[in-house]
């Protein structure tokens, strides 16, 4: 007590970083903005409307679930907003609005809140939401044609076209420049590679993520495709730029909660993602494998952690081996 005021007593350290969960999520939202703007230009107003609906739905579900479960309100951490944007980014812009709301419900209510909220989900909620929609709605694979006019709100469902991954032999592929800029059919947030890379660089510079997972993931796919395509670099370029690979590698596979913490673990995790993605693309009956590969590696994360957590400082080498064997 000094001057009648009680002193604060707390455990050391008495200094803390200014970084908060909210500031981290805000950085992710900022990093998603270039791709959001690009989607508006490429797929028109409908892309923006779908994203806005998805964000609002996620926020409402999060608020309601926390209320029903009698937990504290966590809207302030902005994680629901990030999930909302990512789910919309994984939908074709022509998707009926109610369908994306179903995806949001699966992500927030079941995958996130039923497992205890932020930091407790065992798979990435946005990916789970997307996979649910993919399995439930045929419209998830009906791609909207790019550059069909900004105000084109009505005729969207008629304008379907194949993505480069699903193009049959002999059909014309978009040029590589168009691939980089995102002038192609696809989910609304995944097409503009330039915008996604820009967002990824922002996250790395702000130290929100390390470049390990995106680089190793995309690198693994590139190497496997190079071997599978018998050294055809054009094939590699299309494989890397098409589908949701860059979006998945930069924004979805790097989710803190569902990826390993140590660098060694991140490398194994990212190689696993790349391997499964490539195998699905080469041998699977599905055109795309990014979501499935990430969700499978999410599930494998606790196992990866178990073998890759670094040993405490100064642990002798011999003991290290003995410990690994018993673990």
């Amino acid at each position, binding site marked *: 007590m000094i001057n009648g005021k009680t002193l604060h007593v*707390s455990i050391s350290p008495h200094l803390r970083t200014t970084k908060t969960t909210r500031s981290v999520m805000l950085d992710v939202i900022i990093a998603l903005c270039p791709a959001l703007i690009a989607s508006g230009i490429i797929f028109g107003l409908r892309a923006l409307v779908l994203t806005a609906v998805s964000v609002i739905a996620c926020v409402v579900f999060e608020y309601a679930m926390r209320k029903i479960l009698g937990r504290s309100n966590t809207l302030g951490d902005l994680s629901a907003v990030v999930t909302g944007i990512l789910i919309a980014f994984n939908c074709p812009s022509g998707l009926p609005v109610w369908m994306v709301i179903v995806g949001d419900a699966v992500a927030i209510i079941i995958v996130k809140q039923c497992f205890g909220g932020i930091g407790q989900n065992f798979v990435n909620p946005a990916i789970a939401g997307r996979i649910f929609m993919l399995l439930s709605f045929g419209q998830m694979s009906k791609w909207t044609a790019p550059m069909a006019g900004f105000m084109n709100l009505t005729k969207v469902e008629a304008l379907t076209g194949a993505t480069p991954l699903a193009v049959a032999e002999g059909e014309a592929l978009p040029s590589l420049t168009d691939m980089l800029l995102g002038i192609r059919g696809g989910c609304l947030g995944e097409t503009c590679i330039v915008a996604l890379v820009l967002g990824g660089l922002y996250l790395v510079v702000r130290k929100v993520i390390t470049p390990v997972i995106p680089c190793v993931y995309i690198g693994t796919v590139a190497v496997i495709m190079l071997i599978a395509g018998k050294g055809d670099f054009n094939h590699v370029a299309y494989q890397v730029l098409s589908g949701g690979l860059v979006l998945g590698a930069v924004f979805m596979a790097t989710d803190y909660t569902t990826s390993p913490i140590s660098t060694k673990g991140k490398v194994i995790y990212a190689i696993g993602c790349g391997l499964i993605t490539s195998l699905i693309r080469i041998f699977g009956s599905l055109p795309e494998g990014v979501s499935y590969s990430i969700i499978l590696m999410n599930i494998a994360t606790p196992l990866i952690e178990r073998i890759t957590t670094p040993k*405490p400082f100064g642990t002798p080498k011999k003991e290290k081996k003995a410990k690994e064997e018993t673990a």
Partner: protein
Amino acid sequence: MAKLPGGVLTAVKQVRGGVKVAHHKNTADCEVIRIDTPKSVTIPMQMNIGAPCEPVVKVGDEVAVGQLIGDTDKFVSAPIHATVSGKVTAISDIKMPQGNMAKAVTIESDGEMRLWEGIKAPEINSREDFIKAVRASGLVGLGGAGFPTHVKLSFPPDKGIDTLVINAAECEPYITVDYRECIDNSWDILSAVYMIKDMFGFKKVVIAVEDNKPEALKILKRIADDREDVNDEVKVMVLKSKYPQGAEKMMVQSATGRKVPPGKLPADVGCVVMNVASVAFISRYIKTGKPLVSRSLTIDGSAIKEPKNVRVPIGTNIGEIIDFCGGFSKDPCKLIMGGPMMGVAIVGTDFPVLKQNNAILAFAEDDAILKKETDCIRCGSCASACPLSLTPTNIVRAVKAKDPAALNRMGAMVCMECGSCAFSCPAGKPLVQYMRLAKTILREEAAKK
């Protein structure tokens, strides 16, 4: 070993992790000034790691500065001396900053600061004499831990200990007393360094300073170069300013590249680490025989009117020292004994200064209230900040599950509570608290067996 053009060493092996903390070395230019003689001092009988002392004086005894007032025959301990001249008025149990109780001797000062007539410079002819003298001086590590110095030096000559590391890193924000020691008493430091080196046969001496103290580096290097030293075995090493460079294990790693294994001491990898102020004190003690009765403190923080570096008799009431620094400029919201990263928050000013205190910081409300705790997002900031390669977020889960086997596997006992993890946590988790809980669980488990 890398060599800079000026002959200054750099770290053999960089320390992993750590955090960048604002330095706030506001008092770097403040020379250490002696405070007015306190009216009374309360000297606790427990001011070191190890066994507490028993008072050897009675209420009513007249004592003089430097007279023995507390001692024990236990090895890991250091004797305690009167820090003012006057009369013993009480021997009672007092509350210590950490909340435990300890016996303490209260001496009412006669204001004369009369030196005890029994003080004489120790006679040193062998390393045993030297160790005995260091013990008699009452010296404990002045950097904050309070480990009795003579214990560090009591290693058998054939143990293969070859490196002496002098810790002048002072990586805690705000604190500048070690820096002042380097600037003001550099000759004391160097003469003690050579004395210890010759006495104990160290092959290499590394004086480690962080690169945010170029003045200290320059002065220490100049003196080290001046001295005739045939094999050039005393070197100054510059470290990147990063918290916790000054931690003992980190010091050993930077200076030699060796890693102290879990549960071991620097001596097990051939090193002895000593704080720069402790070394300077040894030099003065050998010359004068005056035991450890006072120490330097940094008084700083947003609620202190005139931040200063002060020299105070051990046992001086903190409130008196703050009054000497002009009192509070704003209502204090938090008082810390020690640095902001590892110091102890105290509940009031009614505590005595201990041998191992190096700062008293007072913060106003804006700087005192920590951010709200939210859910862990498993971002891994704590794991990348940990200089000892632990994964605090996993340890928290094991603490909640009360799982001693998992805690053991994760090496929770290795934690030195530097606070880098909690500092960098975006969710504001009190991770050091969890680490202490983890250690309690492990100790209880060990006691069961």
